[in-house]
């Protein structure tokens, strides 16, 4: 067996398959790209519509309502700092990427998680796939997406969606399965039908777990969006990538601060939503 002949043959085969795909399935990938970029641009347009202080104040108000007053004030000041550092457009495009990717990921993984929670068979079928996705370093998800969608935000979105899905699926199905038995039996005794039993009993109990999943997904999405700067996603990731390559220390510190600020704000907000729902449940 000659191993050295295998590598060039493999590379050639991969190139051939990619050429074939770009020849025959271009309409599909172009379509996907246009849709994804359109969605991303829409979110970005919305975020850029108001001036930065309006966004900062709104975010501060939301943070105040969801966490507490001092965190709200901190949020507003921190976001204003991003603008003062001259990184407002980058911050907003990173935020738009995270939002767009999380919306797509959640739209797919919440129903899937509910189904997996209701059907143990599907759960057993999904578990190894989710394990594998979570075992692999996030960085390599950029490879297939850049091969098929090319350089740009669409690639970043696809890779981010893949990374963000597993925690949401897992925690949703966990939440659905964890409904206390006596409540299901109570529902049966009261003669609820299955739809009612799901929406009135199982779902409310699952909400804290689902919110924890949303928080985890968001954090995974963040990590990925920043890495995706290398494939031209735009935003803070690309700023850092460029700054590191030109050894522009000041700029890369600024961009890192902006990333940390944004991550902290979103993390605390979603976390507190999860815990406040929990309190309501109790």
């Amino acid at each position, binding site marked *: 067996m000659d191993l050295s002949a295998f590598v060039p043959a493999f590379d050639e085969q991969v190139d051939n398959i990619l050429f074939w795909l770009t020849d025959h399935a271009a309409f599909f990938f172009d379509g996907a790209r246009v849709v994804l970029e359109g969605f991303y641009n829409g979110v970005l347009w919305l975020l850029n519509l108001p001036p930065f202080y309006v966004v900062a104040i709104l975010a501060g108000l939301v943070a105040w309502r969801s966490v507490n007053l001092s965190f709200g004030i901190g949020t507003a000041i921190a976001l204003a700092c991003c603008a003062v*550092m001259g990184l407002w457009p980058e911050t907003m495009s990173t935020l738009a990427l995270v939002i767009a990717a999380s919306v797509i990921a959640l739209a797919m993984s919440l129903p899937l998680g509910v189904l997996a929670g209701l059907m143990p068979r599907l759960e057993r079928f999904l578990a190894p796939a989710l394990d594998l996705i979570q075992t692999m370093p996030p*960085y390599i998800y950029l*490879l297939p997406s850049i091969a098929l969608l090319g350089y740009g935000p669409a690639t970043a979105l696809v890779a981010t969606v893949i990374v963000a899905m597993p925690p949401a699926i897992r925690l949703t199905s966990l939440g659905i399965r964890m409904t206390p038995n006596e409540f299901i039996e109570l529902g049966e005794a009261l003669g609820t039908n299955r739809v009612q039993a799901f929406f009135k009993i199982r779902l409310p109990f699952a909400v804290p777990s689902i919110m924890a999943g949303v928080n985890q997904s968001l954090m995974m999405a963040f*990590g990925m969006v920043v890495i995706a700067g290398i494939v031209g996603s735009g935003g803070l990731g690309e700023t*850092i990538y460029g700054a590191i390559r030109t050894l522009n220390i000041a700029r*890369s510190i600024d961009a890192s*601060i902006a990333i940390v600020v944004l991550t902290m704000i979103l993390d605390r907000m979603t976390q507190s939503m999860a815990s406040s729902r929990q309190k309501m449940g109790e």
Partner: protein
Amino acid sequence: MEFSPGAFIAPAVDWLNTNFHPFFAMLTRLIEAILGGIEASLLVLPPFAVIAIVTLAALLVLGWRMAVLAFCCLGFCLLMGLWIASMQTVALVLVAVAIAVAIAFPLGILAARRPRFEAALRPILDIMQTVPPWVYLIPAVMIFSLGRVPAIIATIVYGIPPMLRLTTLAFRGVPTDLKELGQAIGAKPRTILFKIELPAAKPTLLVGLNQCILLSLAMVVLAGLVGAGGLGAEVTRGLTRMEMGLGLRAGLAVVAVAVLLDRLSRAALELDRRKV
């Protein structure tokens, strides 16, 4: 109005680089030496010999399933023509995990003993685990420039929080009656630690080790962006030059290494459970 905190911190970094250069250079040389040694010992034998040794060890200790898995994963790396890069990545992960555990383990025990220390540590760990991995590479690159050393420093820092948390959890979870039993029979604190607490905490510690290994691998691969070498560098080359064949091979080799490290450390955990 424009204000850049980075413009204030950058001179501080410069100052550090000029005044502490001997220290950083020494650290660099030390890490390079350790890494070089481990890499050389992984590469000194021909690939087939390494595969045979790992497979045999897995067969003897963990059973035939792990042996088959180890053989397939390592054989796959060889088949993909990325043996050297794979071994470089494995060496980076091993060194990073060893140092991270050496730092996190005593701190974790201390945090389990002193609730105050843990309370002080908790917000720092929270922040460290929320920040995206990319951000860890930036300060490392500023001080150690490009190459393997910043990569490994960032990886160590990234791997510490999960290990620290699970060490604290593990030692907190040791049943009090066991510890009291040790004190009652007049065992020295050191004996209690190694003969009673450590065995009781082992399952949770192994979970922490598994987490630490996987996070370190993710970071080491990402560090290909700052010139860490290994499989991460091949993935980066594939991505930036659009050499999809190379990128795909490197990506699959990363998967093989990840699956191998994950399953081996998990199998070690199961082995432990079976004994208990």
